[in-house]
């Protein structure tokens, strides 16, 4: 118990799960998490991320595949023998037990005597800055405080893996940022391998070392936040993470990873193709609003301003292209950034070649 715990790795090996009704919840998920990493499972609701979390915790037995913690395959172990700590979305604190008893609950289950338990609970409560609250009941604390208790309770068992299920969803926006910093600080201190389930991309990108994007039970991409944002591998990732304008076009030439596309809106652009495409393929081109700029030469494509939206630090212009598609372009606002009037004819192009991404249609 007292031995210094090494951060354990977590491997999901071809995890597939079908519900009793036959619905496929997750399909062929492979994840290789290094010890001490923070991983975010990101996806819209119903993408299977919570199912995956419950499989790792042992609440659901997967239909196929293996869960490996450290060097051990844990599939045969019930939840109470996996040493996986969980912070639930609604915190799930025991309402009839004091804060201190909540934190000491896992230690009591391990047969630790009361004096040691109380001391350890106090140490953890000090760590989450709730030292004086040990005698209170959960309902006497605010949401943020309850969450810190839930975190302390999960960390008390020195878990090999820490799972956080939508941990910040119930907090208001200001508190959320504070708690994200706090959780990251505590995770660094404890060095515990951590999985955060979230549908909030900002949260995933800001907190995680690596992000796994899930959609309809499939793993779309697993990579660092920069890779996810800058080099999305699928159309889903490109549109779900960050915002992207989707325009259609036809491939006219390919050269290694770069392809030249003739846009239906007119003009040609050079784009990156993570999936192979051939000449004369119909494709979807994703352009991030912040990767576009107004140009005065004849590169890019033409359109006219539909609307100008000054959003504080950025200015967003909506442009109507020739084929009727609507494209947003966002610029950092400097002293002289002019708001363009509706109806003004403009030309728009990516800031650099390769900032646009094409996907087969």
């Amino acid at each position, binding site marked *: 118990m007292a031995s210094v715990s090494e951060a354990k790795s977590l491997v999901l090996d071809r995890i597939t799960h079908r519900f009793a009704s036959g619905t496929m919840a997750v399909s062929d998920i492979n994840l290789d998490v290094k010890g001490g990493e923070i991983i975010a499972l990101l996806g819209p609701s119903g993408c299977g991320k919570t199912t995956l979390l419950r499989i790792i915790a042992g609440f659901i037995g997967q239909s196929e595949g293996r869960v490996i913690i450290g060097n051990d395959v844990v599939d045969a172990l019930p939840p109470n023998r996996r040493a996986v700590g969980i912070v639930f979305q*609604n915190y799930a604190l*025991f309402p009839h037990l004091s804060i201190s008893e909540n934190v000491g609950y896992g230690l009591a289950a391990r047969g630790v005597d009361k004096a040691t338990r109380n001391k350890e609970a106090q140490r953890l409560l000090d760590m989450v800055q709730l030292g004086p609250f040990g005698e209170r009941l959960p309902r006497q604390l605010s949401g943020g405080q309850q969450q810190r208790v839930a975190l302390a309770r999960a960390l008390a068992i020195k878990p090999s893996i820490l799972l956080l299920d939508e941990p910040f969803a119930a907090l208001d926006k200001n508190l959320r940022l504070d708690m994200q910093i706090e959780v990251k600080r505590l995770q660094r201190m404890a060095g515990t391998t951590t999985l955060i389930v979230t549908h909030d991309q900002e949260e995933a990108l800001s907190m995680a070392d690596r992000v796994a994007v899930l959609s309809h039970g499939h793993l779309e991409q697993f990579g660092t936040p920069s890779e996810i944002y800058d080099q999305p591998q699928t159309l889903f990732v490109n549109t779900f993470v960050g915002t992207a304008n989707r325009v259609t076009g036809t491939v006219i030439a390919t050269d290694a990873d770069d392809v030249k596309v003739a846009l239906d809106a007119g003009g040609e652009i050079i784009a990156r193709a993570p999936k192979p495409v051939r000449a004369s393929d119909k494709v979807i081109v994703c352009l991030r609003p912040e990767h576009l700029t107004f140009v005065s030469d004849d590169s890019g494509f033409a359109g006219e301003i539909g609307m100008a939206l000054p959003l504080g630090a950025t200015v967003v212009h909506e442009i109507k292209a020739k084929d009727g598609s609507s494209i947003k372009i966002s610029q950092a606002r400097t002293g002289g950034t002019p708001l363009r009037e509706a109806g003004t004819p403009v030309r728009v192009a990516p800031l650099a070649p390769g900032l646009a991404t094409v996907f087969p249609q």
Partner: protein
Amino acid sequence: MKSATTASATAPGDVTSFSLGLALPLGVVFAIFFVLPLAQLFYLSLHNDTAATVWGLGQYIKFLSDPFSLAVLGSTLLLGAEVTLACLVLGYPIAWLYQRSGSRVQTLIIMIVLLPLLTSVVVRTFAWIVILGRQGIINSVLQSLGLIGTPLRMIYTQGGLIAALAQVQMPLMVLPLITAIGRIDPNLADASASLGAGSWRTFVKVMLPLSMPGIIAGCTLTYAAAITAFITQSLIGGGQMLFMPMYLYQQASTLQNWPFAAAISIIFLFAVLAIVALFSMLGRRARGYGDAR
């Protein structure tokens, strides 16, 4: 300005008088058919002779100094405790099962639980006589299987009575339990397991304390119903076992000793009130748990 003041001044008053007015019919019925007879009963119990002419506490002294009467009171309260315990032990798993079943099984469970309430007590009690009797279902099956030579004595025994009463009172236990267990956040059991607790520990440390409001409510209802179940007590218990409701009936109806019967009623009433107060005191201590989401 003026109209606003008037409205705010009169509106709350209106609401109050209105709701009191609505409660009036019931209040009148209650006063005439419950409070008044109870007062009369109390008045009657304070007389030493059967004709109710001499004032005194003689009836109370007679009851409280009579070992036979005290034994009847004691066995009645004990019977209630035994029936309540049987209902709790048998009912908790049913309520537990209900919360963990699909909606079709839930409907089935509710129907089975409510079924006893849909038939008359007399019918149900006679069914138990058929089951428990000397030539009843259990005895004839066991005899035909050759397991027993002479019929077992089940009817007119404490055990048979407890079984019959427990079946009759079961809905009063199961329904509050279903409500209480349903209010417990299912994540709590998962949280307990993930912290290393086995299923027994999770049950004792989390589920049981959090279902305490339902246990208290169920026990109070079952207890009160079991000790006053005149028909079942008399028919299944038979002549050898005497409980308070029958004792009372004998004194009033057979012996025409109304003042003594009245005193028995009052003593019985206070004994039951004391038990109910004990339960609700326990309930108050457990109330914090009930807020569990």
